[in-house]
């Protein structure tokens, strides 16, 4: 994306609903709770929102979702869009918001994802696959991502101790987050003892299933200066898709994070060494490890040793997923990663605050790890 857009747009409001098991609230109830919390955070009225971008429901398969949300929120907007790019949608929505404002479509955009993933299951929302998978017993995202982990282990000697170090680090962070779904301390032994789901993934390699919603409000940097919160500026934006698929070439071990990240770093004019905290899309432990490699925090194949020794923990060189991530805070399709990065840069994270955090990286990764999006944010 054009470097002239660096710092031209800002995140001015973030909010979330309760996360975890929330059977008494509807999908829209959770979503509106997140919207209200983001509006209050920004000090904006709903009438100030003239653009809405939402994630077209993963579970509910709602058509034209942005319109359904606006209807319930009670506003008309100049621009509305429902996006489907899996886990890449979160960071992509912020980029589309900036692009829409730049194009003059609207001036202040609400981005949202949320649903009742835990207590209302209505299928996984994917198109039913008719052949070349289910007949062999191949089902679900866990197995797809696990194929990547097996290949990475084969090529680079990556171990379960290393994958486990990621899960343990994020759980430590969740224990400092009163909103997190999982706040029981976890050791590496607990990780090894957790049951196999699809080898090489233990249960604790896999993200949570959650009810929950989160919202992010984007506007121009100029407008942001007059609002309630210190603006968090969008320095860098990147996107890339390994569209030929997970099974193709080296895609299982080299994610589209490589090009997505390179674009974002180029636009931001910074390098991995400048990042104070990373909020990585952690649908599975392995995706964190591979993303860190592909972003250039370490060399390809060195992600295993890199994530050990507390490097990803608070107090380590690269505090990562400081709210607990999707492995321990809750699964809101990557939106909580943007919320957490914003709060870290504002210095609002209390016991889990990264001291003097100036620059944060956020990743989104979806479509079974082939669609990717990256944000680099600064205070």
């Amino acid at each position, binding site marked *: 994306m054009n470097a002239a857009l660096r710092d031209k747009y800002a995140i001015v409001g973030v909010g979330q609903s309760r996360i975890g098991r929330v059977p008494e609230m509807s999908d829209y109830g959770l979503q509106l709770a997140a919207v209200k919390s983001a509006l209050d955070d920004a000090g904006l009225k709903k009438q100030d929102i003239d653009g809405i971008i939402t994630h077209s429901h993963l579970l509910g398969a709602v058509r034209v979702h942005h319109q359904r949300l606006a209807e319930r929120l009670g506003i008309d907007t100049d621009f509305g869009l429902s996006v489907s790019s899996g886990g890449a949608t979160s960071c992509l929505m912020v980029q589309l918001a900036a692009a829409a404002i730049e194009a003059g479509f609207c001036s202040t955009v609400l981005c949202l994802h949320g649903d009742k993933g835990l207590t209302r299951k209505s299928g996984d929302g994917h198109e039913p696959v*008719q*052949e*070349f*998978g*289910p*007949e*062999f*017993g*191949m*089902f*679900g995202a866990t*197995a797809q991502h*696990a*194929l*990547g982990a*097996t*290949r990475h282990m*084969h*090529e680079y000697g990556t171990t379960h101790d290393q994958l486990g170090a990621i899960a343990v680090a994020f759980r430590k962070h969740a224990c400092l987050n009163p909103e997190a779904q999982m706040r029981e301390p976890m050791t590496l032994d607990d990780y090894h003892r957790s*049951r*196999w*789901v*699809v*080898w*090489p993934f233990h249960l604790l390699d896999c993200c949570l299933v959650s009810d929950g919603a989160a919202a992010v409000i984007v506007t121009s940097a100029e407008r942001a200066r007059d609002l309630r919160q210190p603006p968090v500026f969008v320095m860098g934006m990147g996107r890339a898709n390994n569209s*030929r698929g997970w*099974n*193709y070439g080296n895609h*299982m071990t080299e994610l589209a994070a490589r090009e997505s990240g390179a674009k974002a770093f180029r636009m931001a004019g910074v390098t991995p060494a400048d990042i104070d905290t990373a909020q990585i899309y952690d649908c599975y432990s392995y995706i964190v490890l591979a993303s860190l490699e592909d972003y250039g925090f370490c060399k390809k194949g060195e992600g295993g040793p890199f994530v050990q020794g507390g490097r990803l923990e608070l107090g380590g060189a690269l505090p990562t997923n400081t709210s607990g991530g999707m492995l321990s805070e809750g699964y809101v399709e990557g939106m909580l990663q943007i919320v957490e990065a914003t709060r870290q840069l504002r210095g609002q994270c209390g016991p889990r605050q990264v001291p003097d955090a100036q620059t944060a990286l956020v990743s989104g990764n979806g479509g079974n790890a082939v669609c990717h999006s990256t944000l680099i944010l600064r205070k």
Partner: protein
Amino acid sequence: MTPSKPIPTPSEDSKPFWEATRNGELRLQRCLDCSSYRFPPGVLCPECSSTSSEWVPVSGRGRVHSFVVFHRAYHPAFANDLPYAVACVELEEGPRLLSNIVGVETARIRCDMAVEVLFEKINEEISLPKFRPRA
């Protein structure tokens, strides 16, 4: 009642693939312009965008690019098969496809292991191409 496993529903594009496996043969679609093989089947060559192709028999030999072992039944019909392996097999001709590795304990499967195709008859219409270790 025991639930049955999903049976592939061939599409307009994949019909020749399943007709071949029914006859105990693995065939892939090959581009008539650039000679590259492709999978999954489709009307356009992903290399050169040609729409001319033919279905040709292939060796049935390949190697395991990667694999996983299911310890949880995502579909009740697979509960009795646990633990079972699903692999991404790279054929000698290039394309990769998902299938099962059979005839070997799951603990002995390795990436890059040499495999060959065999066919498992499901009904009069469908036979599934599966893979076993090759000496």
